């Protein structure tokens, strides 16, 4: 009896091994699974490959978190991790997944939109992981790279990267920069296929408002800036005025007419979405490679607060002038003032 049981157990074990060895890889299995703990608002978790099947099983496939209120309204898309070292954008997206609950409309969030970039770290002067303390213990988040992993890209960088729509040729590594290759190509490099998948999602889901969350070196012109597609510049201008009244000084720029491949330019031009890019100052992106978390002048909590406040201000501006059936409202949204005061840990799930 005992011998039969052991044989059965052994058989089951071998069957499991065989299934794992010969089965198709699950979507995104080649990547790391980031610690994202969806909150009550999230109604579905999908993979980006759902919008572009060839991405399935590649290191660029990534999870898509959807919070659908069930009440008609605007569809809002938020991307963190276009550059996986721009950690305030990633954590802002995670905080939204874990705490935002829409009451009208729909929220679609991808916290690690360039999954491949989040699997490696470019410099030894920055951390590979960061620790965020929450009331229920620490959580860890990957501090990734700006570019797609060259191994994942599957082809060597060109000498110079030239966007198909024209403009100035860039350094070859920019071919692996997700925010240079939009709208992408269905049969292009991994980064171009990823961009194509994002465009497909924006179109298929009829996204109304799209945000790409970034960071820049504190000395950069881009630090503390909202970049808006020209068609929705007024919404961003209204937000800048509101933010200033809250003590947050953001600069404003329209997308360049001649610099192609950027999210705010191509998302706005090729889909119906109002497209915005938000930049906060990350000390680790300065030439001195400062601390990305605990810098006295630019602490992570303050940068996340700026992202959340900017999103809120733009959505408020949108609601002022949109048709009644295109509003976006929330019963819960991470309070940026509290994030600034007590840190983002208080807004992450246990």
């Amino acid at each position: 009896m005992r011998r039969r049981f052991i044989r059965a157990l052994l058989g089951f074990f071998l069957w499991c091994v065989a299934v794992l060895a010969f089965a198709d890889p699950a979507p995104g299995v080649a990547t790391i699974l980031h610690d994202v703990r969806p909150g009550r608002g999230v109604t579905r978790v999908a993979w980006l490959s759902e919008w572009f099947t060839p991405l399935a099983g590649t290191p660029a496939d990534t999870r898509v978190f959807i919070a659908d209120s069930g009440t008609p309204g605007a569809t809002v898309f938020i991307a963190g991790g276009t550059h996986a070292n721009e950690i305030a954008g990633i954590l802002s997206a995670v905080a939204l997944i874990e705490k935002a609950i829409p009451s009208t409309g729909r929220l679609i969030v991808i916290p690690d939109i360039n999954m491949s970039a989040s699997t490696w770290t470019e410099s030894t002067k920055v951390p590979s992981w960061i620790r965020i303390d929450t009331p229920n213990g620490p959580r860890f988040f990957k501090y990734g790279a700006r570019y797609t992993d060259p191994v994942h890209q599957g082809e060597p960088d060109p000498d110079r990267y030239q966007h198909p729509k024209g403009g100035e040729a860039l350094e070859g590594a920019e071919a692996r920069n997700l925010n240079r290759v939009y709208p992408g190509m269905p049969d292009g490099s991994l980064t171009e296929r990823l961009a194509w998948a994002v465009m497909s999602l924006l179109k298929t889901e009829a996204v109304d408002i799209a945000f790409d969350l970034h960071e820049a070196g504190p000395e950069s012109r881009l630090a503390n800036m909202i970049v808006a597609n020209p068609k929705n510049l007024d919404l961003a201008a209204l937000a800048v005025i509101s933010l200033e009244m809250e003590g947050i000084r953001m600069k404003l720029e329209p997308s360049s007419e001649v610099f192609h491949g950027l999210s705010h330019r191509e998302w706005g031009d090729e889909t119906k979405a109002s497209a915005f890019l938000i930049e906060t100052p990350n000390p680790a992106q300065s030439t001195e490679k400062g601390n990305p978390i605990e810098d006295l002048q630019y602490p992570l909590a303050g940068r996340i607060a700026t992202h959340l406040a900017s999103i809120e201000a733009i959505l408020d501006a949108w609601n002022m002038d949109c048709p009644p059936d295109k509003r976006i409202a929330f019963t819960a949204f991470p309070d940026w003032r509290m994030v600034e005061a007590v840190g983002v840990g208080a807004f992450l799930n246990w």
Partner: protein
Amino acid sequence: MVRKHRSLVRFLSVTLMAGLAVLQVMAQAVVPPALLGSFLPPGYITSAGQTSDAAIVKVLANTKLKLGFSYDIAAKPQAIAGIKTLVLVLGASNKGLGAAGLSLEQDMERVKSLIAEAKKQGAKIIAMHTGGTARRGEASNHVIALCVPLSDAVIVVEGGNTDGFFTGLCEKAGVPLIEAASIAEAGSVLKSLVAQQ
């Protein structure tokens, strides 16, 4: 004893509130009475230097304050026919100049011709600088130095005049300078300058 303390608390509260009120008044921009309502509609907003701050002023003036001013970031003289107030938003932006297909010199020529047209038709000019230190580079200073002496009033948001650049230009040209603590306050100043119809 308790009564004595109560009186003290009352006295301190009243003093504190009065102090805060005084501070609030002091923080508000001071508009010379002669300027209040002295600029007439219709108005027109454009940039001098192609700064996107012009879009912020447009939204502030029209969406927030309902002034109903026309707007074109790169307006040409023929666009301002019939206006009574021209608002120039100051600041040079390479990106903005590139988008408009203009060099800084070409944009300054455009601005000179706009100012000449405004003066010709008796319109008054308000120069506004809302971009703070970020819009105070060398190119922006050229634009500011061109426009300020030819304006009838100048509004500057805090941070743009920490070095007294605007103060010096305005004093030399005899142009009233109004400093505002924020973009929103600059909007209130603008509204107070424009005669209500």
